[in-house]
């Protein structure tokens, strides 16, 4: 049993960190996990991304063509990963930076105004945690508590003052639930 998660956005949106946090939480919960930054042909195109695979057995390939889950933090990432999510999978969209509708009807979609929520919390940079929170409440591969605990245990000490803000961002994001878009 394994879950593949791709997190994609512009460089600087914290997609690599969001993936690492998931990896830490998976490890702390006794699961197998791989984290790999953008590699191969998908390097082109100005987006940063990482693939996290969480499983209960030795993980084979660290990359997949069709992930179970995609978190897209900007429009180019939506264009790229919307067609690739497995049927029945989950697409979490940063609605703040995406100016089009999602076309797929065979996947679950969560639209989260992650930048607005982050700005309301006081710091635009936690939009990645809002997205992660939204993912966790819709694809409970790990509990919100497990990820919060991983953040407490692995956040560098110089960033420790940012902990409450990041936890709040996770919790705000977790309030958004997926909808199965209906055909028009």
């Amino acid at each position, binding site marked *: 049993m394994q879950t593949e998660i791709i997190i994609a956005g512009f460089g600087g949106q914290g997609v690599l960190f969001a993936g*690492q946090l998931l*990896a*830490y939480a998976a*490890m702390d919960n006794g699961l*197998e*996990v*791989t*984290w*790999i*930054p953008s*590699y*191969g*042909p998908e*390097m082109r195109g100005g987006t940063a991304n990482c693939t996290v695979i969480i499983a209960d057995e*030795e*993980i*084979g*390939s*660290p*990359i*997949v*063509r*069709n992930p179970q889950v995609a978190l897209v933090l900007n429009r180019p990432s939506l264009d790229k990963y919307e067609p690739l999510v497995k049927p029945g999978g989950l697409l979490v969209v940063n609605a703040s930076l995406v100016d089009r509708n999602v076309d797929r009807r065979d996947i679950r979609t969560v639209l989260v105004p992650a930048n607005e929520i982050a700005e309301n919390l006081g710091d635009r940079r936690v939009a990645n945690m809002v997205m992660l929170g939204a993912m966790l409440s819709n694809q409970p591969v790990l509990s919100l508590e497990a990820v919060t605990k991983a953040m407490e245990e*692995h956040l560098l000490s110089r960033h420790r003052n940012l902990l409450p803000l990041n936890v709040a961002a996770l919790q705000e994001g977790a309030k958004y639930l997926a909808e199965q878009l209906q055909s028009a």
Partner: protein
Amino acid sequence: MARELWKGNIAIAEAAVRAGLEAYFGYPITPQTELLEYLAMRMPELGRVFVQAESELGAINMVYGAACTGVRVMTSSSSPGISLMMEGLSYIAGTEVPMVLVDVMRGGPGLGNIAPAQGDYNQIVHGGGHGDYRPIVLAPSNIQEAIDLTMLAFDLAEAYRAIAVVLLDGSLGQMMEPAEMPPMRPLKTTYPDWAVRGAIGRERRVLSSIYLDPPLEEEANLRILRRWQQIEANEVRYKGYYLEDARFVVVGFGTAGRVALSAVRAARAEGIPVGLFRPITVSPFPDQVLRQLADQVEGFLVVEMNTGQMLEDVLRAIEGHAPVEFFARLGGVMPLPEEVLDEIKRMTTAPLTMDGHPRERWLQRMLQPA
């Protein structure tokens, strides 16, 4: 021992430190640079030697000098940088001093790119520097193995006075996985009787790769060969998955091996009796085990991230006792499990042939899209 999340390059660096690495010399190159960067911080804090040399040539010759003192010494690089080190590696082999080399392979030939590939197989396993020598080559496919094999590389290099190479690709260098780091081993306090560490109070020792008198060079060549025969007899390592009842076997090393594992599992879920054979030492190559497997199975599929370099070793090992097929992605493109699964299905449904070369059949398939 708790599991921690390690990035491949950094895991190898820390494993080397814990194996008793006393001196590191290197030159930065992607996708290996984190290894050097980490040691630039770590070695001085332990009072050990770290030098970023002026070039790969400088680095490998500093390794040569340090190796002659009998300490544990290492360098690391990626494909183009490894090419630059070949002359020094040959001198080290000819002088019969131990060292560890890490090659984090990228797309090539030439400058190529910084994406993961396995195109250095022939250079590391069969070629490289001039003259008659063979390195021990260990090919990890996950981060725990990268740690364990790095530690082992130091032991093997020392035991056989040989070059031990840890051969991986850029994806393994860059990815993170949980792994257990073994405890720090104490630095060695005694040195072998060939090491040059100052000759006060004893007769001087000379270490060199020069044997101007051919019979003496012949003797040196035979000495190196006899050590190699011991390595072949004692140090072959591999891992098998689902082989007990397998009628077909996929063969892949390093990252290609772990990608193939995903495909093999997916095939098993569909009831296809396929297993995976993953060489861990690609030099010495697990000839005998593959030869035995060849009598038990209906066919092999070799998967690589090069145009079939290890394929030739598999063909040699199984001596025509089973049909072989081949699949590869090249130039920094990683194979996907879905692609390998398609190849497994093709192999297990279409009639297999012993005619022609597997590489040629693969090329023909590539050129005519389905």
